[in-house]
């Protein structure tokens, strides 16, 4: 009689400030697969967890935004390397979460890995493409450079648990921002595994902070938080979008609005998402002998 080995099940936690923790509230919620089967419990983050995540992101901002573009590019490329090594795990988790199988799920996971590579290559080109030398009418040297906006709150897409998440997170990081991400509410498990990849890659702690839980509960706190500079509403529940945008006005946040329906993430991206989270800084200096 062959003995069936019992698998070691994973505890899915929040990822805040480079550490995996349960919600300070002690709450969790059951996550089911596409066919309704129980997969695991995920931590149900609270307002306090969201605030801790913002603090961690703010703390990490000077280091990450101040790193060289070459360094950031290598760090993001390393994320792709580590994801490749966990490809089977991502296939299983995305398949369970989204109910897709075979070549379809392979293409989703492969595209997610390739997306890191694409954005990794952008880090040292953003300033070249979006910056400018300004031919002002006077004896001044004047140039403009894009700089990261700061701490970006991301409401990740609700359907595409991994590719969608990577598609919204990678550009934010490539531009030098730090992030607080609220994962897909009902499909959070691939996101937590991605956090494990980030934790073991060279992304400094606090650069990405991942919360799982109720998007509707967490998003208002992020939209109103004075230390959040921008918010991506892509995964915001439709009935909340207008109110979140209104709330964001309280501190003049940059708002990336949600598209009418979730985009096809398998399409090759453009630089819209890089542009959305940079500020143009113009510097002047006189010329003279």
């Amino acid at each position, binding site marked *: 009689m062959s003995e069936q080995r019992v698998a070691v099940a994973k505890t899915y936690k929040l990822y805040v400030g480079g550490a995996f923790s349960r919600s300070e509230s002690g709450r969790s919620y059951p996550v089911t697969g596409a066919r309704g089967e129980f997969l695991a419990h995920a931590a149900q983050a609270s307002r306090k967890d969201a605030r801790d995540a913002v603090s961690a992101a703010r703390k990490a901002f000077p280091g990450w935004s101040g790193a060289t573009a070459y360094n950031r590019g290598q760090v993001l490329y390393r994320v792709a390397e580590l994801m490749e090594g966990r490809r089977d795990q991502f296939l299983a988790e995305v398949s369970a979460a989204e109910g897709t199988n075979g070549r379809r799920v392979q293409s989703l996971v492969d595209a997610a890995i390739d997306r890191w590579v694409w954005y990794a290559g952008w880090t040292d080109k953003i300033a070249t493409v979006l910056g400018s030398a300004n031919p*002002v*009418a006077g004896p001044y040297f*004047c140039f403009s450079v894009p700089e990261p906006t700061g701490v970006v709150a991301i409401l990740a897409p609700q359907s595409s648990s991994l590719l969608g998440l990577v598609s919204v997170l990678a550009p934010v990081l490539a531009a030098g921002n730090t992030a607080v991400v609220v994962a897909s509410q009902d499909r959070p498990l691939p996101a937590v595994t991605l956090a494990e990849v980030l934790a073991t890659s060279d992304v400094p702690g606090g650069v990405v902070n991942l919360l799982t839980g109720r998007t509707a509960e967490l998003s208002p706190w992020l939209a109103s938080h004075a230390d959040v500079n921008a918010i991506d509403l892509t995964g915001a529940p439709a009935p909340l979008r207008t109110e979140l945008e209104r709330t964001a006005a309280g*501190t*003049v946040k940059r708002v990336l*609005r949600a598209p009418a329906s979730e985009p096809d993430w398998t399409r090759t991206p453009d630089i819209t998402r890089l542009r959305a989270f940079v*500020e*143009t800084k113009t510097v002047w*200096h006189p010329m003279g002998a």
Partner: protein
Amino acid sequence: MTREQVWEYAPAPESRDVARLKPAYRMFVDGEFVDGTGEPLKTVNPATEEVLAEVGTASPADVDRAVRAARRAHDRMWGRMPGAERAKYLFRIARLVQERARELAVLETLDNGKPIRESRDVDVPLVAAHFFHHAGWADKLAYAGYGPDPRPLGVAGQVIPWNFPLLMAAWKIAPALACGNTVVLKPAETTPLSALVLAEICQQADLPPGVVNIVPGAGDVGAELVNHPGVNKVAFTGSTEVGKLIQRAVAGTGKKLTLELGGKAANVVFDDAPLDQAVEGIVNGIFFNQGHVCCAGSRLLVQESVADELLETLRRRVSTLRVGDPLDKNTDVGAINSAEQLARIRELAESGDAEGARRWTSPCPLPDKGFFFAPTVFSEVQQSMRIAREEIFGPVLAVLTFRTPDEAVAKANNTPYGLSAGIWTEKGSRILWMAQRLRAGVVWANTFNRFDPSAPFGGYRESGFGREGGRAGLEAYLDV
């Protein structure tokens, strides 16, 4: 104590006749000047408190008419016109502004109170330059980095402030038109005249009807315009307080929004800076346009070791600023734009006294009539004081000190604003180090308050979002 002037200046007033002031001005809709059905307003010369003209204002029905005219113009013609043809209209406008430069400068000074030297040498030349620069973009948008065929948004609703009335109109109208949008613009309640003369220039340029519409009025007209469902794009320059209201109002509508809001810029002077040059820059930074400048260098951060010497030189220099008749070519500081703004400046200055800062006021004589405020420097200012935190929008400088570059950066960034900043030092590496760390959209190193249509301008954080000028500025008016 009155300081002896080195030279006596004879008055050298520019003739107000040059402004061709009319007793009444009307709004401009669909290519024609028409009577607005709102309550007419009287615009006042802030230097004399005399009424300059009566100006018709727009009712909600008038705003609607203007937006419809702009829509028709966009859909039927302007949005489809080849860029090369749109460009020629903008070049014409630039030329007409140059031809009528003196008239525009005098009119601006009468309505706004700014010194003629500034309206003549800064505002109006920059207006022409802005149209000229953007004219060239109209048929080159494919090269701007927003894809091969970037499309206009449609109708732009634009609300502008009173501090640079004509220049702000140019900053709004020129890029909008170059990108193929049509506009409905609301000038500020206290300074509507130059925008209406610009409307006349649009007529002279044969700009097709409806492409530019000007609807004067107060904040309610602005709100009507911003909230109009026929508007695709909202652009606002003004206070952060109103900017937040507009961002709230626009939420959920899908309208594209850009905001250029308030500031509390740090002007940082290191101990190795050439002090005389720095003092000129500080004076330009805070007293240019009476300090009615969103990017004014209103917080002076001086390295402690040179603070006493710099303050003494600064006070001596500020004492020589001539405050008075804005039409006089010798005037350095003109009139505060309105009684309301004067009251706000006074109230904030009093808070500086109450909170324990040390006030120094220029001993310059002030005119008997009109709204004037003598250049004022507060020293011994703490970061917690209102004069260090709130935008005063007047000729009032708050001076703080620092010891290390890190402290300078921390203090400079200790504000919810982030529009501009200044650095004064001879050390190149320190300039670049500082420029990288200052969270502000424009950083002037060893200069201040420079503007150019090719140089993107706009804020970080609560100073707003979006840029005006240059390639970056086109994004605000393209569907990208």
